[in-house]
C-alpha cells in the first residue's frame, strides 16, 4: 500500500524533478524572508506606479491642454469670397463636417446708422454659441428677450450713453433695440453691437458672411477639416487662424518636451531605486547561493532561480504599480485640469516589460559578480 504510494511519488518526482522543488524554493524564499522580500516588492511597486503615472500623463496631457487652448476661440474661419454672403446651407455643411468635434458660429455684419447719423457695425449671431466659443468676452448680462442687444463698450458710449433703448437704421429700415448687456473684449468687438440672428435677419435681411469654427483636434485633423470644408463650400474661403494655431502648437510642443524630460528623469530614478534595493536583496542572500552551489547546483540553475524570483517580483510589482499609478495620474488630472486622466492601457505592456527587465538586470548582476567566488569563502562569512 505504502510502497505503491511511494513509487507514485517517486515516479511523479522523476517526471518533473525540478519544477516542484523550484516552485517550493521560490515560495519559501518569499515567505521566510518576508521583510526583505516586502521591501523589494515595495520598491518595485512604487517605481512601476511612478513610471505609469508619468507615461499616462505624458500621453494624456496633449488632449487636456488642447481643451484649455480651445478657450482661445476659433481656429478656422469661413468667409464668402470677395465679401459675398455664404450659401444658406453653409452652417449645416460645417456642422456635419465637424461631427460634434467642435463648435461653429455664424456671423452676419452690416454697417448701420444711429439716429444722429454715426456709423456703427451691427452683427447678427447665435449668442448662446458665441458665449461658449468666446469665453473671454466680459459681458454684464447676456440678452435673452427679443430685440435685446449686446452692446460693445465703445459702441455703447455712442449709441446709448445712458443705457436707454435706441434706434438704428439700415437701408431705410429702422429697428428699436434695448441694450440688455455691455460687452468688453479690448478688441474690435467693443465697437460693435451684437443681435440674435433672428432679430437681425428680420431687420436687415442680410445672411451670414462669416462662420467661426473652433475645432478640437490635432493640427492634422484641423488641416483635414479645412480641406473637407473647402471642397464642400467652393464659393467660400476657408482658412486657418494662424495666430491661434501656431501659438498652440508651440506652447504644446514645449510643454510636452519638458514633461518628456521630466518623465525620463523620474523613471530613471525609480529604476535606480529598484536596482539598488534588488541588488542589496540578492547580495544579501549570497549564503543561499553558496549552499546551493555547494550542494551541486549548476550555475545555470542558480541563475535561473534568482532570475525567476526577480521576474516574478517584477511582474507582481508592475501590475500593482500600474493600478496605483493610474490612480495618481487621475488625481493629478483632477487637481490640475478638473478632469481625470483617462487610464491608457497601452502603457501597461511598457511598464510590465520595463519592470521585469530592471528586476532581471538587478538579479543577474550580483550573481555574475559572485560567480567566481568559492562557496566556502561565502559560507565562512568572508
Amino acid at each position, binding site marked *: 500500500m505504502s510502497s505503491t504510494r511511494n513509487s507514485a511519488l517517486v515516479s511523479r518526482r522523476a517526471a518533473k524533478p525540478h519544477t516542484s522543488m523550484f516552485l517550493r524554493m521560490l515560495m519559501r524564499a518569499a515567505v521566510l524572508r518576508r521583510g526583505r522580500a516586502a521591501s523589494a516588492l515595495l520598491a518595485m511597486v512604487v517605481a512601476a506606479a*511612478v513610471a505609469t503615472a508619468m507615461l499616462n500623463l505624458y500621453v494624456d496631457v496633449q488632449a487636456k491642454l488642447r481643451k484649455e487652448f480651445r478657450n482661445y476661440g476659433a481656429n478656422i474661419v469661413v468667409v464668402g469670397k470677395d465679401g459675398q454672403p455664404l450659401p444658406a446651407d453653409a452652417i449645416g455643411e460645417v456642422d456635419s463636417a465637424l461631427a460634434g468635434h467642435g463648435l461653429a458660429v455664424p456671423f452676419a455684419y452690416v454697417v448701420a446708422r444711429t439716429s444722429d447719423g454715426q456709423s456703427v457695425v451691427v452683427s447678427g449671431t447665435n449668442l448662446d454659441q458665441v458665449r461658449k466659443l468666446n469665453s473671454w468676452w466680459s459681458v454684464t448680462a447676456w440678452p435673452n428677450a427679443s430685440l435685446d442687444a449686446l452692446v460693445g463698450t465703445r459702441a455703447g458710449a455712442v449709441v446709448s450713453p445712458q443705457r436707454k433703448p435706441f434706434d438704428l437704421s439700415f437701408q431705410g429700415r429702422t429697428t428699436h433695440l434695448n441694450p440688455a448687456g455691455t460687452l468688453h*473684449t479690448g478688441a474690435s468687438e467693443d*465697437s460693435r453691437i451684437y443681435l440674435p440672428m433672428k432679430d437681425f435677419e428680420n431687420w436687415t435681411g442680410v445672411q451670414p*458672411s462669416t462662420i467661426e469654427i473652433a475645432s478640437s483636434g490635432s493640427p492634422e485633423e484641423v488641416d483635414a477639416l479645412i480641406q473637407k470644408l473647402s471642397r464642400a463650400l467652393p464659393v467660400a474661403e476657408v482658412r486657418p487662424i494662424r495666430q491661434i494655431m501656431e*501659438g498652440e502648437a508651440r506652447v504644446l510642443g514645449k510643454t510636452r518636451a519638458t514633461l518628456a524630460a521630466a518623465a525620463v*528623469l523620474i523613471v530613471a*530614478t525609480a529604476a*535606480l531605486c529598484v536596482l539598488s534595493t534588488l541588488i542589496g536583496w540578492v547580495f544579501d542572500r549570497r549564503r543561499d547561493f553558496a549552499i546551493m552551489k555547494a550542494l551541486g547546483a549548476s550555475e545555470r540553475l542558480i541563475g535561473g532561480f534568482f532570475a525567476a524570483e526577480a521576474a516574478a517580483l517584477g511582474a507582481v510589482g508592475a501590475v500593482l504599480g500600474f493600478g496605483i499609478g493610474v490612480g495618481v495620474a487621475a488625481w493629478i488630472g483632477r487637481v490640475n485640469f478638473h478632469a481625470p486622466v483617462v487610464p491608457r492601457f497601452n502603457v501597461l505592456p511598457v511598464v510590465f516589460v520595463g519592470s521585469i527587465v530592471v528586476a532581471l538586470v538587478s538579479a543577474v548582476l550580483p550573481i555574475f559578480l559572485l560567480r567566481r567566488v568559492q562557496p566556502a569563502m561565502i559560507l565562512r562569512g568572508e
Partner: protein
Amino acid sequence: MFGRLVYESFRRQKRRKLLAGVAITLGVGVATAMIAVATDIGDKISRELRTYGANLVVTPQEDTLDVQIGGVDLKPPSDGAYLNEADLPKIKGMFWRNNIVGFAPMLTVSVQVGNGDNAKNVTLLGTYFSKQLTFGKQDFVTGVRITHPWWKVQGAWPDDNSSDVLLGESLSAKLGRKPGDEIEISGQPHRIVGILSTGGAEDNQIVAPLALAQQILGKPGAVRRLYVSALTKPEDAFARRDPQTLRGAEYDRWYCSPYAASIAFQLQEAIPHSHAEQIRQIAQNEGTVLSRIKGLMLLVTLAALFASALAVSAAMATAIFERRTEVGLMKALGAGNVSVAALFFAEALLLALIGGVVGFAGGALLARQIGRSIFDSQIAIEPVLFPVILAIAVIVTFAGSAMAIRRAVKFDPVYALRGEA
C-alpha cells in the same frame, strides 16, 4: 576615535560608499533639475505664449468708433484721433519696461493701386518691421516681427527706412505680382520685396513701413493704434481692483505687479492722450494656460522628489543592512546603541553633504541642458536653492537610514557575529 572610525569606514568600504553616494548624487541631481525647471517654467511658457501676439492695445483717447468688418476698415481715413509716433520710445522708460517684449504701431490708409482703368482701392497698413529705436541710453529693436510672430514672408522683409512694401498673399494672387515687381501706389512706384501670409485681414492688404503710410496720409508722426506684447502675471482678484480705489501700500503693490491691467495703466501714463487696454482673448487665456502648465509641473516635481527620496532611502537602507556584523562586533566590544547610531548618522551626513554638492552641480547642469534644448534659453538657478537642496538631501538620507540603523542597533550581536541575520 570617532573620527577615525568614520574615516576608516570610508577608506575600507569604497565600493559600498560609492554606491550609496551615487544614489544620493543622482537623487539630488534629479530633484535639483526638476525644481529648477518647475520654478522657471512659468517664465519660459509665458515667453512662449507671446507667440499669440500682442496682449495689450493702445488707442487714442478721443478715438471715434471703429467701423471695421473682417479687418477691413470702412471708416473715412481722415476720421478720428492719432497717437504721436515720437511718444512710443517712452514705453521703454516705464516701470515694467523689461516685461515689454515688443510693440508695433499700426496706421491704415486707403490707397489706389495701379493706374487708369484697372485702378483698385486697397488698404495699406503702415507699421514697424524691426525698427531700431533709442530711449535714453538704451537701443532696442521692435516691430511686427516680434509682436506678430505668425506673419510669414516669402521673399524679404522690407527695411523700415525704405519705401519698399509687402503684398498680402491673396492680394498678390489677385494682382498677379511677385517679389521684385514694382507696384504703383497712389501714383508712386514702389518695389515689392516679399509676399506676406498671416491668415488674417493683412492677406488682402499692402503692408509698408510706417513712414510711407504717414506720407501717403499726409500726417507725419501719426499712429492709429499700438499693439504691445508684454510678459504678464495671471490675473487674480487683486488685479481686477480699480486703481482709483486703492490707497497707499495697496496701490504700490498693484502698480508694481506685472498684471496686464497695471501694465496697461502704465502705458497710458507713458503715452499722452492714450487709452490702453488688454486684449482679453490673449491676456485672459494666457493666465489659464500658464497656471495649468505650472500646476502640472509642480505635481510632476513632487513625483520626482518622491522618487528620488525613495531611491536615496533604499540605497542607504541597503548599505546599512549589509553591515550588521560590524555592528555586532562593535556592540560585543562594548559600544552603546547611541555611539553606534551616531557613527552611522555621521557617515550618512557626510555622504549626504558630498552627494548633495555634487548632485546640485549635476542637477544645475541638467537643468541648463533642458532649458537650452527645449526653450533655447538658460534656466536660471536661484542660489537660495542650494541650502534648501542640501537640507533636503540630509533629511532624506537621515530618514532613509533611520529605520535601518534602528534595526541594526537592536540586533543581538551574537546572531550577527554568527552570521545568522
